[in-house]
C-alpha cells in the first residue's frame, strides 16, 4: 500500500519532543490570555459549509477540506475560527454581557490549491473582543498582540492599516494597491500611498473615520513597534471592515483585524476585533 509512511497532504503527527514544545508554548500563551481576562470557548472541528457560503469567496472555499456527511449535507473541516465564533455566539449573545473577551485554540486545516505548497494543518490560538467598536478596543487588542510576542522574548513589529481606506477608493486604485504598480493614469493619492509619502491628512478627505481612528491609534502606541502602512491592502480582505494588522517577530506570527459586520450576518449585530497566532511560528 502506497500510503504506509505518507499522510494526507498537509498533516503530520507531532511526536514527543515536538508535542512537549507545543505544550510549553500553549501553556504560557493561555496563561497570558487569562491574565488579560479572556475566557476560553471551544468550537467544533467540522461545520456545515452553507451558513458561511455568503461570507467566503470561492478561493477561500477551495482552501478547506469538504465532504458530505451522513445526512447528505456538505460539511468542512475548520479552516478559520472567526466566522465560526460569530455563528456560535450571535444567537446566544445578550447586550448586557457585552463586551466579551474570548479565546479559542485548535487546529485549522487549509489545503490551498497552489503550487507553492502552503498546505498545512496549523495550530492556532485566537482572541477576540466582541461587542466593542471603539478605537480603545483596537488599541487594547494591538497591545495584547504585542504583549504576547514579548511573552516569548520576541521583539514585535506590528504593521497596521484600515481596509476602509482602499474600499473608499475605486477598483483601479485597489488594483494598483494590490500589485504596488502605478501607471500614468494612477490617481495622485494612490501614487502617494504606494510611494510611502501619504499621511493621514491625505486620507482624511475620503476616509475620515479611518483617518481619525488611525490617528488615535498612532498617538496611543509606540511608533517603533506599531507601524502604520497606509498602502497595505490585499484582494480578498474577506470580512474585515476596519483596522487590519499583522504581527511580526522573526517571521509573521499573527494577523487580525476588525470585522464589524460579521455578527449581523448570523442574526445579532455586534462590533468585533480579533487576531490569530499560529503557534508553530513561536519559540
Amino acid at each position, binding site marked *: 500500500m502506497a500510503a504506509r509512511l505518507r499522510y494526507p497532504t498537509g498533516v503530520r503527527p507531532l511526536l514527543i519532543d515536538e508535542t512537549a514544545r507545543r505544550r510549553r508554548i500553549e501553556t504560557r500563551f493561555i496563561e497570558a490570555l487569562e491574565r488579560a481576562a479572556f475566557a476560553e470557548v471551544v468550537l467544533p472541528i467540522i461545520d456545515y459549509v452553507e451558513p458561511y457560503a455568503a461570507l467566503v469567496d470561492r478561493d477561500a472555499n477551495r482552501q478547506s477540506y469538504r465532504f458530505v456527511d451522513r445526512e447528505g449535507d456538505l460539511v468542512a473541516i475548520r479552516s478559520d475560527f472567526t466566522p465560526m465564533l460569530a455563528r456560535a455566539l450571535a444567537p446566544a449573545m445578550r447586550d448586557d454581557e457585552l463586551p466579551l473577551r474570548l479565546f479559542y485554540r485548535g487546529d485549522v486545516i487549509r489545503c490551498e490549491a*497552489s*503550487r*507553492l505548497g502552503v498546505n498545512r494543518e496549523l495550530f492556532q490560538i485566537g482572541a477576540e473582543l466582541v461587542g466593542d467598536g471603539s478605537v480603545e478596543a483596537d488599541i487594547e487588542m494591538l497591545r495584547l498582540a504585542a504583549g504576547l510576542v514579548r511573552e516569548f522574548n520576541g521583539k514585535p*513589529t506590528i*504593521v497596521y492599516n484600515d481596509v476602509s481606506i482602499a474600499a473608499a477608493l475605486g477598483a483601479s486604485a485597489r488594483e494598483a494597491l494590490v*500589485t*504596488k*504598480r502605478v501607471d500614468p493614469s494612477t490617481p495622485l493619492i494612490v501614487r502617494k500611498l*504606494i*510611494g*510611502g509619502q501619504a499621511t493621514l491628512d491625505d486620507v482624511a478627505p475620503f476616509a475620515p473615520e479611518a483617518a481619525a481612528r488611525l490617528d488615535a491609534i498612532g498617538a496611543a502606541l509606540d511608533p517603533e513597534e506599531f*507601524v502604520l*502602512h497606509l498602502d*497595505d491592502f*490585499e484582494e480578498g480582505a474577506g470580512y474585515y471592515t476596519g483596522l487590519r494588522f*499583522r504581527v*511580526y517577530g522573526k*517571521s*509573521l506570527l499573527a494577523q487580525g483585524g476588525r470585522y464589524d459586520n460579521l455578527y449581523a450576518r448570523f442574526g445579532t449585530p455586534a462590533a468585533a476585533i480579533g487576531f490569530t497566532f499560529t503557534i508553530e511560528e513561536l519559540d
Partner: protein
Amino acid sequence: MRIAIPKGRLQDRALGVFAAAGFDVPDDFSSRKLVFNTGGVEWIFVKDCDVPVYVEHGAADAGIAGLDQILEHECTAYQPLEFDFGRCRMMLIAAPGAPPLATIATKYPRITRQYLDGRGLRAEIVPLGGSVELAAVLSLTSHVIDLVETGETVRVHKLEMQDLVAEISPRLIVGKNVYRTKPREMRELIARIEDTKNASLQSQLP
C-alpha cells in the same frame, strides 16, 4: 537583501536592470556557483519558474519573474515594475487542419485551466516540461499553449496561432512580508530601478 535572478532567457536583461540601477552585480559565471555576494546584496540564480516560489516564501526579498510564472504559481508577491524587454505572448497554437480543441499540451496547466474556464471551453490538459510545440506537430494533443516571442518556432513547425491567452512581461516582484517589515529598503530598491527605467525611456526620445 537577497535578490533572485532567473537563469536562462531573462538572466542578462535582469542583471542589466540592477546594474543600470547602480548595483554591483556578479559577472563571473565560470564556476557553477548559484549564490554571489557583491555590493552588499546576495544574488541567487534560480530557474525562471522558481523565482516566484523563492520570493513568495521570503527565501528571497525580490526578484525578476515573467508574468507567466507569476500567474502559474498564483504568486501573491507585489509586482511594482513591469519591464519592456523580454515581452512575449502566450498563445493557443495548433497544426493547420487540426481537429477541434480536445487536448492541450502546456507547461502552464493552471493558466490553461483558467483560460478554458474563462472562454467556456472544455479540453483535457496534458502537462509537459518543454518543447511543447512538438505535441502539436506529432498530434500528441490537438492544441498547445505556449509562449511565442518572435513566432519563429511556430513558423518552423508550420503551426498556426489561434488565440491570445495572455500578454506576458517580466516584472520586478517583491515579497509581501519583507515589504511590510523593511518598507524603506524595499521602496528604495523599487525607486532606484524605476528611475533608471524612466531615464532609459527619456534617452529613447528623439
